[in-house]
Each structure stands twice: as C-alpha cells, then as structure tokens.
C-alpha cells in the first residue's frame, strides 16, 4: 500500500479494518487527518507503532468536535490514560465509535462513559448538572437545574440508589424515539441538516453520538 511512502503495513490495515467500521481508504484518511493535527509530533510512518499522542487542545478544535458541548468529555473518555491526549489508536477508536456505522449498543456504552463526568461508573447528580449546564450554556437557574436533575433520576433510576447505573441508562436510552430509528441517524435529520452537510463536504467520516 501507500503511494509515496508506507504508512501502514498490510497487516496493520487489515487489522484496523477488522477492528473499526472503516475501510482502508478511510483509515489512511484518518491518519492524514491525525497527522495534520500535529505534523511535527506525528510521524508519517506507522509501521512500527510509534508511541505518540496528540494533545487534547488540538483534537477538540477539529471541526467535528468544535461545536460539541461535550467535546472534552468525548476526547477524555476515548483516551486511554483519561487525560484527553489521544494516540492514533484512540483516535481511530473514537471515530469508529462515533461513525454512523457503529451499532446503537456500542454507542450507548460510550455515551454512558461520556456523560459520566467524574468517571465513577455512575451518572450521579453532579454529572447530570454538568451535562445540563453544558447543554443549555448555563442559562437555567440553579433551581431549574436541580428540578431537572431530580426528574431525570426519578425517571431513569430503577434501583433507587439515586444515581444512574449503566443498566438504567441503557434501559432509558434504548427506548428513546431517536434511538429507535433505523439507519441510526435520526436527530440530525430532524434538526438542522446544514451542520450535517457541512461535514459531508469536508469528506470526513461523519460523526455522531447516539443517533
């Protein structure tokens, strides 16, 4: 493979192909994107698994993540060390899970990780508060935030421990109408197609989370 120089060996590409939802081409393109993020950090040659990471700041400024209120959390939950700096493996992983090919169940697992701000494997009230504040740009009053968070826990918490375990979360999310739609991408179409098409034009692997 490779036009001018070898980026991956055939085996590597095959392995990536089997481990992600991407084709060879897309993996190479992803590598290009990854390389472009930090040209002086990332080597072109990946045949011998160089150990390098791109800092979080560069990643959250990618157009796919730029407007996302949870961008830091997304990147953090995909980084192996949890600090948000992504190795190429993490990077591919992130795009694979966020691609529209990924099944809902997988997305639900990562969605849970993303919303679990304090990484205690529960979505507790403080996580909910943070989520809400990010979603509304802190335009709700503290009382309203409190009310909403309590309602969420009341609705989804089945075992009554005052926080959402993954079972609760999955139970809830799998019944969401957007989640049930076929073809996995629901919300985007209902909402604003512009954001969608823009990404399409950029020829980047489309990303989305749960829809």
């Amino acid at each position, binding site marked *: 493979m490779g036009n001018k120089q070898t980026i991956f060996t055939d085996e590597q590409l095959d392995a990536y192909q089997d481990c992600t939802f991407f084709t060879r081409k897309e993996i190479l393109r992803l590598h290009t994107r990854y390389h472009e993020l930090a040209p002086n950090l990332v080597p072109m040659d990946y045949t011998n698994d160089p150990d390098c990471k791109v800092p979080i700041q560069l990643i959250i400024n990618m157009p796919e993540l730029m407007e996302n209120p949870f961008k830091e959390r997304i990147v953090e939950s995909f980084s192996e060390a949890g600090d948000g700096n992504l190795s190429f493996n993490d990077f591919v992983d992130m795009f694979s899970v966020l691609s529209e090919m990924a099944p809902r169940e997988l997305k639900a697992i990562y969605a849970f990780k993303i919303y679990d701000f304090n990484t205690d494997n529960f979505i507790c009230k403080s996580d909910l508060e943070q989520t809400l504040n990010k979603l509304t740009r802190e335009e709700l009053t503290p009382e309203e935030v409190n009310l909403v968070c309590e*309602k969420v826990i009341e609705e989804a918490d089945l075992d009554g421990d005052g926080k959402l375990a993954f079972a609760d979360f999955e139970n809830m*999310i799998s*019944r969401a109408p957007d989640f049930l739609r076929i073809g996995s991408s629901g919300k985007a179409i209902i909402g*604003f197609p512009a954001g*969608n098409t823009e990404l399409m034009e950029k020829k980047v692997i489309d990303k989305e989370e749960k829809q």
Partner: protein
Amino acid sequence: MPRPNKTQIEIKMEDVGIEIEQVERDSDDDTGRHGKTNRRQQNNKPSPAGARNNRNNNRSQPQARNGRRTAVEDDSEEEEEDEAPKPRRGNRKKLTKAQDSDEESEDEQPNRKTNKKGENQKHKEEPNNKEKQTDKKGKGKDKDKDDSKDKKKKKKKDSRYVLSSSSSSSSSSDDDSMSEGEMAKLMEEVEEKKKLVSNMRNKPWRMKRRLAALKEAQSFVEKFEGALGKGKGRRLFAYKKWIKFQRDFDNFKTSCIPWERKIKEVESHFGSSVASYFIFLRWMYGMNLVLFGITFGLVVIPEVLMGLPYGSIPRKTVPRAEQAKAMDFSTLWDFDGYCKYSVLFYGYYNDQRTIGLLKFRLPLAYLMVGIGTFGYSLMVVIRTMASNANESGGDGEDSDFLFCWKMFTSWDYLIGNSETADNKFASITTSFKEGIVDEEENQKDENIHLRRFLRVLANFLIVCSLGGSGYLIYFVVKRSQDFATRDNLGWYEKNEVEIVMSLLGLVCPPLFESIAELEEYHPRIALKWQLGRIFALFLGNLYTFLFALFDEVNQKLAVEESIKNATIWATHMHYANFTGNTSATPPPIDPADVIRGPCWETTVGIEFVKLTVSDIQVTYITILVGDFLRAVIVRFLNYCWCWDLESGFPSYGEFDISGNVLGLVFNQGMIWMGAFYAPGLVGINVLRLLTSMYYQSWAVMSSNVPHERIFKASRSNNFYMGLLLLILFLSLLPVVYTIMTLPPSFDCGPFSGKSKMFDIIMETIELDFPAFIGNIFSYVANPGLIIPAVLLMVLAIYYLNAVSKAYENSNLELKKKMQMQRDEEKNRRNNQDSTNSIMKDLEDLLPIMSGENKASTNKNDLPKTPKGADKQGGASRNGGRVNPEKEVSLAAQNPRIAVTRPPGPRPPGPLPGNPQLTVPGQRGRGPPQRVGRGQPRH
C-alpha cells in the same frame, strides 16, 4: 487492586523462571477470550449484563497489562504465529498452554504432564478436550477475577487453584477417550473465533486490546483452518454507502419541506407554541395552494383562454358612465372600474354552455369548483385532525423518560456549524424550560375550592363581557339600519359599526387575558380558552358583516327586478326603432351602453376582497408599528431615557399567538365565503400567506421576545383545526344558502338566465347524459331515500363513536397498567428495606446461629447510610468508592435479595467448593457489578 496483586505473583514467578511468566501471560489473555466466548454463547447481541461484563474487562484489562507486559505481548503473539507452522508437537503444546486460564505455578506442573501425555498418544482431539474443561473453569475464574481481587481472597484463590489443578488432572485421565463430538467442538470454537473477528469492531474495548484480541483470534483460526477470509471491507463499504444514501435521502426529504429551517429557528428561540402558529400558517398555505390550483385551473384560465374577450358583451365591459374614471388608482383600489369587470369576479363569466374548441362547460365547472372548494377543505381539515389525533395518541407525549431523553439525546452530534449550534443550544434550553413549566404545573399543590371558585368567577365575568359586547353590536347594527334610511349623516354615524367593532376587538382580548389570570390554568390550556373566547367575540363581527351583506343583496335583488324589465323594454325599443325604418338587421347596441342590473354576486365578491385586503393591511401595519417600531424605539431610545425601556414599561412585544391564529382562521373564513363570488380571492390569499410567512418570521425574530413562560404546544394543532372547521362550517352556510335559494342575476355571471344556480346541474343531466341517469338521479333525490340514508349515517356515527370510546378506555387502562408495572418494578428495587424488615423479624424468631443472624441484620441496616450519603453529597468520588464494598459484603450474606428479581443473564458460574462467590452471581445485575467496576480504580 489487580495490579499489585499481579505484580506480586509475577515477582514470585520470576524466581521460578521466565517460561512461567509467559504461561501466565497467555493465560491472562485467554481469560479475556473465554469471557468473550462465553458471553457469545449466552446471547449474541450485547445484553446489559454482557455489556457490563465487557466493561469490566475493558477496565481491568488495560491496567492489568501495562508497562512491561504490553511490550512483551506483541512479541509473544508473533512467536505464536511463528510457532503455528511447526510440527504438531510444539503446536499442541503451545495450544494447551494458551488454553490454560489463571492457573499459575502450582497448576503448571500437571498441565505439562497432560500435554506430554497427549503428545505421546498423538491424538488430535486431546487438547480440545482439555481445552473445554479449562474453558469451563475459565468461566468461573473469569468472574472470580473480577469479583475477588482483594488480597483477602487470595487464599481462596489458591485453594481454587488446587481444585482446578485436580480437575485438570482428572481431565488428563479423560484425554485418552476422544470422540467425533470433540472434533465438532473444536470446529465450534473456530467458528466462534471467526465470529469474534467479524464482531471485533462492536466490542467496547480500547483499540489496543481489540487489535491484540483480533490477532490472537486470527492466529487461532489460521492454525486450525489455514487461510482465513480477512476484512469484510467490501461488504461494509456497500452497507456504508446504503446508509449514506438513506441519510442523504432523508436530508433531501427534509429540505423539501418548505420553511422547515425557518420554523425550526423560530421554535428554538420562542418555543413550540409560537412555532405551532407558523406550522399552522404553512399548512394553510398548502391547502390554499390546492384551492388556488383548482380555481384557476378549472375556472379562471379556461375563461381567459377560451371565453369571449373583454369588451365583447355587456358583462365584460365597463359601462359608459364609469369609463372616465375606470382606470383611476382610487377606483381600482376599491376594486371598481376595470377590476370589477375582470376575470377576478363572478359577473365577468359568460353563461354560454360550452366554450372553446374543447367544449369546456364553464358554468358547470364554476359551480363544481365552488362546491369542490368546500368539499376539499372539509375533507382536508378533518383528515388532518384525525391524523393529528392518531399521532398524539401514538407518540409518548407523557413518556416516562421525558427529561432523560431531553438530557441525553437532544444534542445533535452532527452539528458542525456555529450558528446551527447556537440555535440548537437555544432550542434545548427552550425545550427544557417548556418541560419545567409542565412539571411545575404538575407539582403545584392547589387549593381546589378556591381555584374552582375563581374559575367560575372568571367565566362568569367573561360571559358577561361577551354578552355585553354582543348586545352592543346588535344595538349598533340596528341603529345603523335606522341611519341608512336617513340622509345627511355625520362621519361618526356613518362609521359607527366599524368603530364599535374595532374598539371591541382592541379592548376585549386584553381584558379576557387579564381575567384569565384568575384561573391559573397551565399556559397551554389558557391559550385554548383565550382562543375560544376571542373567537366567540369575533363571531359577532362576522355576524354583523353578514347581516349587512344580506341587506345589501336583498336591496339589489329588488332593484334588479325593475332593471330587468327596463332592459327588456329598452332592447325591444331599440329593435322596434330599427325595424320601423329599414328592413335591414339593426346594428347591435354598444356593450358599454346596455342597461345593466346591479349584479349582486359581484358586489358580494368585491365586499369580501376589500375586507381581505384591508385585513392584510391592518395586520402588516400592526406588526410594523406595534412590534418593529416599538422594538426600534425601545432599543435605541433606551440610551437616553429616564427609565429602563427594555425591562420597564413598553419593553419588547411578545408574539401574540391567539390573535394571530384567529386572524388566520377568520381570514380563511372570508376566503371560503368569498371565493365563490370572486375566484381571484384565492390568488390574493395565496400571496398573502406567502408574504406573511416571511414577514412574520422576520418580525418575530427581529423584534419580539419569547414569552415569560415558554410552554410546550400540544403537538397536534387540533385546537386550531377545530376552530378552522367551525369557521368553515359557518362560512359554508351563507354560501350554500345563496346558491340554493337566491336567484342569480339575469345579466351577469355563468348562471344568468337560470332561476336557480344549481339548475345548471339539472340541465347537464338532461342534455348530456342518457335518460336513465336522470331517472336514477331523481330517485336518489327522493326524500324517501335521503331520510333513511341520513338516519343510517347518524347510526353509523353513533356506533363508531361508541367504539372509539371503548378503545380509548382500554387504552387508558393499559396505560395505567404500564404505569403500575413500572412503579411496581421501581418499588421492588427501592423497597428492599421493607422486605428486609420483614425478614429481619423472621430472623429474630430463629433461635440458633444467633451470631450469624446478628451480623446479617446489622448489615441489613447498612444500605440506608450509603444511599443517604449519595443523595446528600451528590455521590462524591469517595462515597462511590467506599459504598460498593459495603453493599457487596452485605449482598454476599443476604441471599434473599436474589428472590426479588429474575436471574440475570450471567451464567450460574459457581464452582463446587467455591460457595462464597455464588451469591454475588445470583444477585445478578446489582451490586456485584458495582464492585467490578469500582475496583479497577483502586
């Protein structure tokens, strides 16, 4: 925890030798693999438990193999691959090694022995057999590993090793007997590995782990099956294309909905209630477009193309007396002059039975279009109402997870444009506010008696003011009839009706609104009441208008009678004059000079068009002044004003939903009433709605502020539709009345010369259809048939109504049941305390084993504390760490809890002689997972 544990072992093992370490490493990898396969055996798609299991592995695995271990790992796998083609002996040895699970130093010796035995006997199935056994053990151990990583349990582990080694030795004795079934098992294993490879991308693991697992699985399969079909790239690619196409198609569909983005934008800032107006407007536009198509396609354009041209006959010519001023702007503005004698109005159409080469029956088409307009509108309104009702029934409006879904699924992850993102943020905030308003309304504890009293009072006040204004209108109309007979009236007396009406329209709605505050309804319901009340008020408006119109029509009819005689006499005289002088045919009279009747139909049409146009003007000017100018003043005068204009008195306007909706509804009523007499009215209305859409959405975005309490509109616009239906019915009545009873004008319009308008149908039946159809028609029109038919319909309505009631009831019942079930489930999980207390009592009755009992009862009390702590402290990280352990220890000794829920999807798992661990397994999805997941953080 696992790490120190592991390293300890490693250190220990280093004393023994490197080889051991490798075994241990392999086994570690293998554990994960067994876990996987087991899981797949249970169920192919990731179940909650399976997923959680995955997570456990995910958590523990990367940390378990860090540093040196990861570095060595790849090498070892390569080694594995290298070994693959080697002679069977080494191969099998390697394999068995790989199949070993946790078994460590103690386990190793017997293991080797079995290997050697197997090699000696050169039986292929041997490793397989062995593998299965260890596999089973692996299952148990896999779980053990998750659950028991504390040092305390180390001893148990050791004991287990002893146990497993013994079992493996027993298996080694079985090795001698190999069978076909085992061969099949091996194939199964290979199949599983293959499945694993193809499902690798669905595993919630870190990429590194996925790669490693993939390599391992592939090498395994290769070993046993040779070449393996790699990469499903092509198939995946096609699937991807399909998904992309689907999405593009969906996008295309959305982009085909007109003004979708505009409405979404309004909705995101002003809430769904304001958006519901615009959606209604769009719907009206669609309906009017169809009406426009029918009217213009079947009436106006045929007349223009095929009918006689302007000036050919009297009804298509401006009379001589009016010609001087016919082109003046003021005349045209009043729809007089050339406008009046144009294709826009009823009077222009000729009464020729057929026109043009195609023999188009224009008069018939005219009547049919008039009736069809109503028919289509009725059908469309009712259909929309029905489908809306369906939708609101089917969709979970009062869903269990309203806020959850808002919280977790409302962000659109495809948004990449900052403007769109801003809109999305606004819309999410708005939707939360809507939800909060609803929720507050639910939680409101109310003084029901006071509330009821206030509501009765408010309704009383409003009925009073409605009655008062009704009487006022009646009074004024009566007076104006008196005035009409008199001369020399002042300006006020001439316009009294209009002035009173507009004053009422100005004063009453705000009055109603302030009265409605007494009622404290939910804003959504309050809007409906407000709409209903203003609607009642405006009905007075409509009534006076119609009243005046019928007066005028009756006058015109009276005048017409005399003119008809006059014209007959005049034409007679004309011909008589000529025939007296010469024998030649007399020259025709110039069409402009013919004496004409007043043509009441055109008058009515003009009246409606004028009304519509003035309504448009008033609406647009009100928006411009009341909203835009106000906003400009408030915004810019605020810099130099005594008080804060923005938050103080004038502030910005809110979007008046009720006023706008009613405006739209009444306007549509005007169109329906007027369309028969002025076909052009539909065209004007289409233009109005089109401009209105842009103009109002601009105005609302530029100069209005959102309502104080943004509330969620009911998803169906059925209340608006109901109003529309009412207005449609009300406007149907006068039109049908005029068509059925009043004689058409003798010298204008398509029905001139007939005694009734519907005679045209009779004429068509008689002339154009064979005789038997006329017979059938007369039978059908027989009252003897019609009355039973009506009766039948009434009965059908009654029956269907009863059926739908029954369905509704059962629906409610089901909903209630679902709710109950949910509550029950919740309670069951929640109220472990209560069940425990009963159990505690029972336990107290037991005399023996007091020590154990006490321990368990004490622990029964414990769960309250962590729960309370969580709720107060928002589950700080510390709490999260400490609690699970407590709960686990609890759970371990409280097997009763297992009764409260069905066994989880996990395998039973417990190994004989390993009793402590069986209990968490039974407990299923609860606390054990918590331990598993909490653990890796230590």
